[in-house]
Every structure is written in structure tokens, then in C-alpha cells.
């Protein structure tokens, strides 16, 4: 059964804003995502060149080797604008809050076998520093990338990475108080297992091509790290060893990776489909970074599993990443 409340009907003059009509026609009312995202960035008559780099434009598509006829092709399949983004994350943080409570009230950490806790300490807590680097890198892409549909998800992604670093910090405080964070930082700075990753992230923080940073951080490194650490080591190995509590506390990371890789893949796919030149550049970036980060992550995996198994897990993650790259149109 249907009931209809009557409102006074006034004929509309415009269905939509002109810039949206040009892109999408005016048969359909544009979505809030479209209104919030398209053509918001200034494009012409930029007044001054940056004093920090006078050879650049204030918004400059040529900061990247990647060329797009229209950067607004790089839409986010999740259609995140501020509101949908925040509502989604608020829901997830509620779940995480109750996860932390559950783990606490059931004393799941207390009851966890020592080897599991040691893995959490040695492998997970230092990753808060890696997430901080991902925050900085995504902030760069947001600041210097071109076109709002490409840059806006990057500020969300940057804040997500900060959130992840903070969830890892809370996990650390829970299993070993401030000392856990201190020990993890020490490892990050000095221990052999972490140095290749730290060095690579310092290198990546020196790169100024926003798309290169995007691809190497979000597609390659995260595409290896999250399946390896959260899907395989935490959700399988640790759970089997009695570490379900840890898996509950990293649920955000697991779900976040699955959600955000849809966006990352779609950006990669659209850029690769744009031109053969783009494809060559992207293949070069993905190929070298994938090989590089695979070797970098090997000693990291070694913190949780024996050498042979570490090899196996890392190469699985590598294969998975290349599958994603192929699906996005690379290497064929």
C-alpha cells in the first residue's frame, strides 16, 4: 500500500548546475557525489605561479608523468564525498569501539599465548610508523594531484591511514602499555627486519609525482602489505594460534583494505586505458615497486613465520598484486 503526502508542486527552472549538465546531461538529477566532486577545482586564469616552484602552475597536471585528457574520469566507485565517507567511517569506528570493549571485557589479551603477543608486538605495532608515511604520501597526492575526483579520496585515505596508525597504537597500549610503543619504535628505527621498509618509505616521501606516489603507496605497497599482514598472518596464522583477539582489533584494516582497493584499482585501470604511454609508465612503476617491496617485506614477514613460509606468503601476495594489475589492464 502506498500513501502520498501532497506538497505544492512548483516547476523547476534548472535540473542541475551547468557544469554537471555538460558532463551528464540533464535527464537525471545529479547525485550528491557528482555535485560535491566535479569541477570544484579552479582550472583557468590562475593568478600567480607558486613561489615555492615557479616552474609549476598552481594546479598543475604536468607534475605527473601520467597524462589524462580529463582527470575527472578518475571517479571513485565508492562515490565518497565528505558525508558518505564520514558516515561510513563512523559506523566502522563504532564497531571497532565495541571490538576493543569485547577484547577488554573478555580478557582476551591476558589469555593469549605469548608467541602470539610477541608477533603482535614485533610485527604490528611498528606498522603504525608505516601508516604515518602512508598518511603523508596521500596528503601529497591530495595537495598536488589534479582534479577533485582524483584528489578528494586521497585526503580521506590519508586520514584513514592516520586512523589505522592510531588503532595500532591502541593495540600496542593494550598489549604492553607505553613500553610496547617505545619498543616498536626502537625496532622501526634500528632492527634489521624493518630497515628496508623504513628506507623505502623515506625514499617514497621524496617523490613529488603525485600519481607515482599514489601507485607505489596505495596500489603496490598496501597491495602487498595488507594481504600479507592482515589477511594471512593475522587472520589466519594468529587466529589458528589463539590470537582471535588480535584479529578483532585489526578488523578495520582488513575491511578498509577490501573497500579501498576497489577505488585504487579503478583509478589504475582508467589511467592505463587512457593511453599506451600511460600504460608503459604505470607498468614500469608497478613492476619495479612490486619487486622492490616484495623483497622489503620478506624480513617483515619473517617476524611472524619461519623463513620458508615467509617466502611463500610474500610471493603469494606478489602474485595477487600482479593479478590485480592484470585485471586493471597492465602487463598484457
Amino acid at each position, binding site marked *: 500500500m502506498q500513501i502520498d503526502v501532497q506538497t505544492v508542486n512548483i516547476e523547476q527552472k534548472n535540473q542541475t548546475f551547468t557544469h554537471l549538465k555538460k558532463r551528464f546531461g540533464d535527464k537525471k538529477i545529479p547525485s550528491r557525489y557528482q555535485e560535491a566532486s566535479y569541477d570544484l577545482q579552479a582550472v583557468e586564469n590562475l593568478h600567480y605561479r607558486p613561489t615555492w616552484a615557479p616552474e609549476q602552475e*598552481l594546479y598543475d597536471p604536468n607534475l605527473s608523468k601520467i597524462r589524462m585528457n580529463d582527470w575527472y574520469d578518475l571517479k571513485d566507485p565508492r562515490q565518497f564525498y565528505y558525508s558518505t565517507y564520514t558516515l561510513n567511517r563512523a559506523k566502522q569506528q563504532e564497531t571497532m569501539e565495541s571490538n576493543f570493549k569485547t577484547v577488554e571485557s573478555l580478557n582476551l589479551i591476558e589469555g593469549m599465548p605469548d608467541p602470539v603477543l610477541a608477533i603482535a608486538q614485533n610485527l604490528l605495532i611498528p606498522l603504525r*610508523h608505516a601508516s604515518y608515511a602512508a598518511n603523508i604520501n596521500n596528503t601529497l597526492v591530495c595537495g598536488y594531484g589534479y582534479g577533485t575526483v582524483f584528489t578528494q579520496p586521497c*585526503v580521506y585515505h590519508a586520514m*584513514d591511514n592516520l586512523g589505522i596508525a592510531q588503532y595500532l597504537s591502541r593495540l600496542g597500549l593494550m598489549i*604492553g602499555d607505553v613500553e610496547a*610503543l617505545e619498543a616498536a619504535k626502537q625496532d622501526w628505527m634500528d632492527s634489521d627486519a624493518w630497515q628496508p621498509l623504513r628506507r623505502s618509505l623515506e625514499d617514497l*616521501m621524496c617523490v613529488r609525482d603525485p600519481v607515482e606516489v599514489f601507485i607505489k603507496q596505495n596500489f603496490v605497497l598496501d597491495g602487498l602489505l595488507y594481504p600479507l599482514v592482515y589477511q594471512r598472518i593475522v587472520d589466519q596464522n594468529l587466529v589458528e594460534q589463539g590470537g582471535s583477539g588480535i584479529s578483532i582489533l585489526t578488523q578495520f584494516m582488513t575491511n578498509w583494505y577490501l573497500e579501498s582497493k576497489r577505488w585504487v584499482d579503478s583509478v589504475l585501470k582508467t589511467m592505463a586505458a587512457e593511453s599506451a604511454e600511460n600504460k608503459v609508465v604505470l607498468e614500469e612503476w608497478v613492476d619495479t615497486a612490486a619487486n622492490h617491496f616484495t623483497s622489503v617485506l620478506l624480513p617483515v614477514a619473517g617476524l611472524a613465520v619461519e623463513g620458508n613460509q615467509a617466502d611463500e606468503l610474500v610471493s603469494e601476495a606478489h602474485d595477487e598484486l600482479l593479478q590485480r594489475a592484470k585485471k586493471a589492464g597492465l602487463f598484457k
Partner: protein
Amino acid sequence: MDIKKTPKKLNVKEKYRLMTRDLAWEPSYRDEKEIYPYVDYEGIKVHDWSKWEDPFRLTMDAYWKYQAEKERKYYAIIDAHAQNNGHLNVTDARYLTAIKLFLQGISPAEYASHRGFARVGREFAGVGPQVACQMQSIDEIRHAQTQVHAMSNYNKFYNGFKDFASQRDRIWYNSVPRSFFDDAMSAGPFEFLIAIGFSFEYVLTNLLFVPFMSGAAYNGDMATCTFGFSAQSDEARHMTLGLECIKFMLEQDPDNIPIVQKWIDKWFWRGCRLLTLVAAMMDYMLPKRVMSWREAWNIYGVENGNALFRDLARYGIKPPMHWDDVEKSIDHTSHQIMLGLYQWKFGTAFHSWTPTASDIEWLKEKYPTTFEKYYLPRWEYAIAQKEAGGEYNNFGLPKLCQVCQLPTLFTEPDDPTQLCHRETDYEGEKYHFCSDGCQHVFEQEPEKYVQAWLPMPALMQEPLKGDLAAWMEWVSLEPTAAGEYASSEDKANFEKWRKQVSTD
């Protein structure tokens, strides 16, 4: 290490330190200068980034939670507003001019601010200011988007909203806010923070944001004033950040003081010139007025400004250089700008009008020493022309100030009967300014301001070559969006629809 330990209770400050400050590390494989290449060139010396005091200790989980709550409420209200023809509840359709200006000029500025804060949130070499700036960056995209969503419903019924994206880049008066934000973004990270974080957010927010949002509340614009309420706590955070960043710079090294002083002088003046548009809005565009520009200035400019600069005096910071000129201009600028907008109304994507008899009474009362003496005669002339069946237009093109990009229509600070005009020769070219303040800004950095894109010369050059109709097409200005309010489609429709919803 004994892994199992009962966690100590941490206080908020300590917890926040661990959740943010402690995430960064000192790079050892690469030089800091390679990672943060832009922190030095402005000459600001920072010895210890950790001395930065976090102005608000928000972790991401708390941020998501609070902001989502606000978003839910906001969209519930603007949905209801759209569903119930809320646009017909505004006092009258003259009010729409205020929000057309807002959408064309201010929302793009919110967006620019989002990008600018992302950049400085990347460039500062300390995690404290990085995270604070990133949070402001994400807030600013919120503001741009919620504003577009609020205006989207008005766009369905009225002229002057639909082309805001191309008008942001092309129409002459929008180059006033555009050049302001482009100026800040093309400056270094520290100057950007003084420009936007301090001068704009801290010193001037109460003179820009508050008048617009209060104007919306007074004039029945539920959508815009809901945005105002929803953004209020964000703005409070941004103001705190602005104040913190200036104190941080001043405390780090005494050599920073003259540099910061120079920026305060510049951005205070730039900001006040931008605010002349708000002055016109407050005194002329609100059918139901909140307060006069003079009253707002006395409270938010003089009182708050004095308190602030008294506070900063202990660092050796003096009140902004052209403060006295601003003070002298307050009783004049709104009238000068509105007369200007009215005579160039064929070229604006909003309507303007001559003040009504009751408007005139109000203006006389609020501006006892200036309105009747200097401006009423000009309005009366325009009214008389209209009554005689003519129209008061000035088809001559205004000469724009090279810095603020407003027409050079202001008067000498000490003689309201003389137009103020300044010139500087630079590398064989003559540049024009509206004031000593703008000339001073130019002379500090001529190599920057000679690059300014001036919309009026663009009209005279290829491919438009002075063709007004071609110009209107180029700036997407439909004749229905421009001109006199009294004969506008907006007015006719508003009155027709209002009748339709209030009678059988």
C-alpha cells in the same frame, strides 16, 4: 620485555602525543630537506617542531564520530528544506543575491583552502602541525560540499547559481576572492598559514562567516544557516589553529618576528579589501538586516582586534600597518561597493537594486556622518533615472586594482570626495592600485603581482575584443541572471510561487 602489563591510565595529552606525535620518526636514510623541501625558503626559523602545541586533541575515531553526527543532522534538514519548498520561506528574493555571491565567491575559496591545507599538511616538518592542517583540509572540503548541496536546491528555481564553476574562473568580481586565495596558495607554507589560518580564520572569520550565516538565519534561509551552525565547531577549531600557528612561529626565533609582521600587514589589508563585498552584503543585500557593517566592525574588528594585538604585543608584534585606513573606510566602503555593483549590474550574475525608502532611513541612522552626505545623492540620481524610464548603468569598464582586483572606486582615507588612485612603474609598465595598502603589497613582491590575471583587460583582448555579448557567453552570464532586481524573473517567480503556496 614482559609483554603482558596492565595499562596505566594516560591523560589526554599524553595519549594524544602517543597517537600522533610519536608516529613520526627522524629520517636517517634521506635528508629532511629532501622530504620537506619548502620549509626553509621563506626565512622562518624553526628549532624545535615538538614545541608545537596541539590546538585540539582529536583522534580520527572521535573525529569520525562527531562529524558524522553533524552530517546526519545537516542533510536531514536540507532534505526537508528542499522537500517543503523552503526557498519560499526567505524574506524576499533580494536575499538570494547574498547567497549567489557566497556560492560563486566563497565556496570555491573553501575548496582552495582544502587544497592549500593539504599542501601545508604535507610540507611542514613536524607531525603536530601536519595533522592539524590535514584535519582543517578535510573540514574545508566538507564546507565547500555542504554549501554546494545547500545551494543546489536554490539553483533549481532561480538564476545566477547554475554556472558558479565557470564564473569562479572567469567573471570579473570573482577574481577578488580567487586572487586572494591564489595569492595565499602560491606563497610558502608559513605565509599560507598566516594568510588563511591566522588573518582569514582568526582575525576575519567573525566578519565574513558570521555575517553570512546570521544573515541567513535572519532571512529565513534554513539551508544556509543550518550549514552555518553545522560548521561552527569546525570554525572554532580552525581559529584555534590559526592562533597557535602564529604563536609557534613567534616563539621559535626572534628573527621570525619581522617576517610575520610583514605578512600580518599584508594579509590584514588583503582581507579587509575582500571584506568590502561582505560589507555591501550586510548593509544592502539583506531584506532583514542583522547589524550594520559599522556595528560588526566595532565588535569583531575593533574590540576583538584590539584584544588580539594587545596579546601579541608581548612578542613585539604591532597592529597591522594599514589599520587606520581601514578604520577610516568603514563608513564608506559598503556604499561605494554597492553603487559600483549597481552601475555594473549588467555584468553580474546576481541582481542589485536601489535602496527603498525604509532602507534609506536605516542607512541614514547607521551611517549618520556619511550616507546622507555622500551616497544618498548618488542613489537619488539613480532612482530618478529609473523613475524617468531610464536605467543607471555604466558601460565604461572599471579600472581594477592590480592587487585586490576590486575596481578603483574607493576614496582617499581623509577625503571622501576624492577617488583614491595610486600607480607604480615596474619594469617599464604602469600598475594601478585602489589604495596605499594595495600599492604597498605590490611593492613588496612586484614579481608576483605583475602575473595577476585581470579580467577587464581580458575582455578587450583576443578573442573577445570588447564584444560584450561574446563576453557574456564566455562567462556563462545569461541576461536573466544579471541586472535590476525589480524587473527580474527571480522576483516575479518568487512572488508568484509564494502566492501559490500560501493561497488556494
